[in-house]
């Protein structure tokens, strides 16, 4: 598969109040394939959000850093700045901080309007974006009246209208109730499956990670695991060391293994746990 994002030996540090350099990412290398659905996990302060901001050029790596390539464009190159931001769409935690207009349709048109697109093209993009997040009926609604999950989907639609190649979501569900969380995640999953959108999901919710293609675990600015969700979550010690936890179905089966039950250890979801337990009980 084709590489769409590449970081080669990237360093990033910031200066604190005393003028001291605090390293966040150290010799950080990563490649992400086009069309993949990648999850980034890590404790608060592990460098996840810094990574997101480096990828769309909001932050620039240190002078001694290796390159960050977005779809072949070096983010350091000033002439690539706008193109990089257009190709990498970023969605943040708090939907209220991301909405700028009062009507759904205007909100989604806000970005592409600034590109100076003709009216019918603008309309087409708004229609497609609304459809992609399943919010067509809300076209003329006031944004402030929407629920958290709906607001977050409008924020995503606004990004989609810019036709990005990569969608990065930084804890998009942290402030949402269970229904809102599911709405947002299923919209994102659909974008990935049906439109081949490359998605990077940063989250503290392990059950969200369980439903992605690839899980990257970060700890103190470095990658400590990078594999399928099954492989990553079958290492409880590694997960604990990174300050994380297991999805509850996985925790249950791991505890059962400790108690001597002969149960399949590659369980991530409720469905898989049900199947594994019923299989174990039949064989006993």
């Amino acid at each position, binding site marked *: 598969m084709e590489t769409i994002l590449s970081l080669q030996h990237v360093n990033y540090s910031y200066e604190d109040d005393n003028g001291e350099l605090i390293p966040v990412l150290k010799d950080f290398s990563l490649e992400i394939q086009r069309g993949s659905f990648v999850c980034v996990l890590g404790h608060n302060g592990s460098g996840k959000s810094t990574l997101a901001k480096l990828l769309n050029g909001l932050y620039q790596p240190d002078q001694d850093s290796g390159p960050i390539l977005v779809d072949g464009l070096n983010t350091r190159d000033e002439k690539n700045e706008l193109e990089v931001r257009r190709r990498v769409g970023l969605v943040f935690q708090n939907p209220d901080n991301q909405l700028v207009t009062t009507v759904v349709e205007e909100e989604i048109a806000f970005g592409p309007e600034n590109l100076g697109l003709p009216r019918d093209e603008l309309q087409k993009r708004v229609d497609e974006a609304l459809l992609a997040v399943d919010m067509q009926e809300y076209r003329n609604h006031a944004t402030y009246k929407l629920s958290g999950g709906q607001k977050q989907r409008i924020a995503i639609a606004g990004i989609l209208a810019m036709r990005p190649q990569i969608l990065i979501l930084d804890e998009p569900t942290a402030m949402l109730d*269970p229904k809102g969380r599911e709405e947002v995640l299923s919209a994102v999953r659909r974008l990935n499956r049906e439109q081949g959108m490359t998605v990077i999901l940063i989250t503290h919710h392990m059950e969200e990670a369980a439903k992605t293609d690839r899980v990257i675990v970060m700890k103190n600015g470095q990658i400590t695991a990078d594999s399928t969700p099954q492989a990553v979550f079958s290492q409880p010690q590694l997960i604990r060391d990174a300050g994380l936890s297991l999805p509850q*179905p996985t925790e249950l089966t791991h505890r059962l293994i400790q108690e001597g039950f002969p149960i399949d250890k590659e369980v991530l979801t409720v469905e898989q746990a049900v199947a594994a337990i019923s299989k174990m009980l039949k064989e006993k």
Partner: protein
Amino acid sequence: MAFITTEQLTYIYGQSTPYEKTALDHVNISIEKGEIIGIMGHTGSGKSTLVQHFNGLIRPTSGRVLVDGVDIWERPKEIRSVRFRVGLVFQYPEYQLFDETCQKDIGYGPRNMGLSEQEIEERVREAAERLEIPNEILQKSPFDLSGGEKRRVAIAGVLAMRPDVLVLDEPTAGLDPQGRKTVMDLIERYRCETRAAVIFVSHSMEHIASIADRVLVMNQGKVELFDTVPNVFSQYARLKELGLNIPAVTEIFLRLKEQGIDVGKGIYTVDDGVKALSQLCQGRVHHG
């Protein structure tokens, strides 16, 4: 006797404007000392509006809020004293840190209570210990801390008032698993050591199931359910309708039951699940 009681508590936002909205609609609940109450409900169900009534931050449109048997709005000028007894930790409380050092920030509440310097220092130390905040952090500016550290400092600022009731509005939102565990452990310990009531709002069914004595489910400003963990989480269909959920482990055992594998009711935590399966298998050995 109940420590916090609401009687026909009703609150209307923007009354007599086009934006009028009934946020709380005749809410009647009472909470005892020493209880842990989990509050859940969809966005806009009235959870935050409700908890902001407990310490008199919002005045009811109608109805009453009683703390320790006294209507807190009987003497509106003394409402401040209620805020010392009912400590409220807002959503994302770290946005409200303001002082030069964490030490001063945590001591802000006790200082407003008019306590002596020695007493303030003692309370700051105690609150910092409860939140596992090391000494070197106390001397730092809150703005130099990580998100998780800021959250703990903000909660410590409320604990330093030693409230009889600790109210937390989504205290774990945005925290990593380790940070969530610290906050959940704190809630249990604070209840155990002080016999205070703890009321927390959460979207995590797992957290509520693991430590709450009773669960309050809000829906469109009304009390939908207010009952024990088993009595609430056994109503799967109703919770789903309300946009809520049940803990993943509860769902696993519910589905097993649908397949004819009955390991008994009342499984709300991983511990419950392991125990139930162990008993089931032992039983099989004995009988088989």
